[in-house]
């Protein structure tokens, strides 16, 4: 047995699992996103959202007004939800950047 040849055969390259390139690209998209570092207190969250919900309920009159209010509430909740998501996305991204540096 030639140990050198056996070692070359044993240690020859192999590919990672399928989809590896896609996963790298997805992580790259996160890392490439242009944003300022996340501020932990940037989103007022619950108090603001609850305040908006309360304001929406006040003066409710008629179905059309109700639907309008529902849409407004959904709009504000959507804004809040996406900002929470953005904040956490940026925080995770920043941790990765700090780790790599």
């Amino acid at each position, binding site marked *: 047995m030639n140990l050198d040849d056996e070692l070359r055969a044993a240690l020859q390259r192999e590919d990672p699992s399928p989809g590896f390139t896609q996963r790298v690209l997805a992580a790259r998209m996160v890392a490439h996103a242009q944003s300022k570092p996340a501020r932990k207190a940037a989103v007022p969250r619950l108090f603001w959202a609850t305040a908006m919900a309360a304001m929406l309920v006040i003066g409710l009159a008629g179905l059309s007004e109700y639907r309008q209010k529902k849409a407004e509430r959904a709009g504000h909740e959507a804004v809040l939800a996406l*900002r929470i998501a953005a904040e956490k996305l940026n925080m995770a991204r920043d941790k990765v950047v700090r780790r790599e540096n």
Partner: protein
Amino acid sequence: MRRILLIVLIASGAIAQLPAQLLQLRINGLDGLASKATESADITLDSNLLQMAAGFLAGDGKDKDQAKVKDLLVNLKAITVRSYKFKEDGQYRMEDLEPIRAQLRTPGWSKIISSQSKGEMSEIYTRTDQGKIVGFAIIAAEPKELTVVAIEGSIDLKDLSKLGGLGIPSIPIPDQGKKGKQE
């Protein structure tokens, strides 16, 4: 100060009923945390509500921040957020997240970011279809905060990331007391 935010954001498949199913699954696992939280956010928006939201945010187009959000909403089918802030450490266990993480280990999901340090954990998952992201999930666990976010639909992470720098909305916030759970 350590904070624990639990954001459960689970992006599921393309079926319109999935948000309700997700809501059902997630509430069972995390509902008990709301009673322990000093602040919590419980947001569930299905495709109908997202359409209504987009219509509201269209407005007169003068608010650029709202316009950015509206552009993101166009291709979304569901958004789910569970976020809890606690006064003290130890109000939840990592095992509480296992039902969520188990779903994110099923075929189709990929964990693209995993970060752990000093009692904090952040994980980001995506589901892709033909090279485009069609599902997105974040789990962010800190000692006094726990946040899980799930988004179903096509989303550009660069555009989402830009929302993080938009700051506090201009609408004034009246005093709402200890808890401000929505719905």
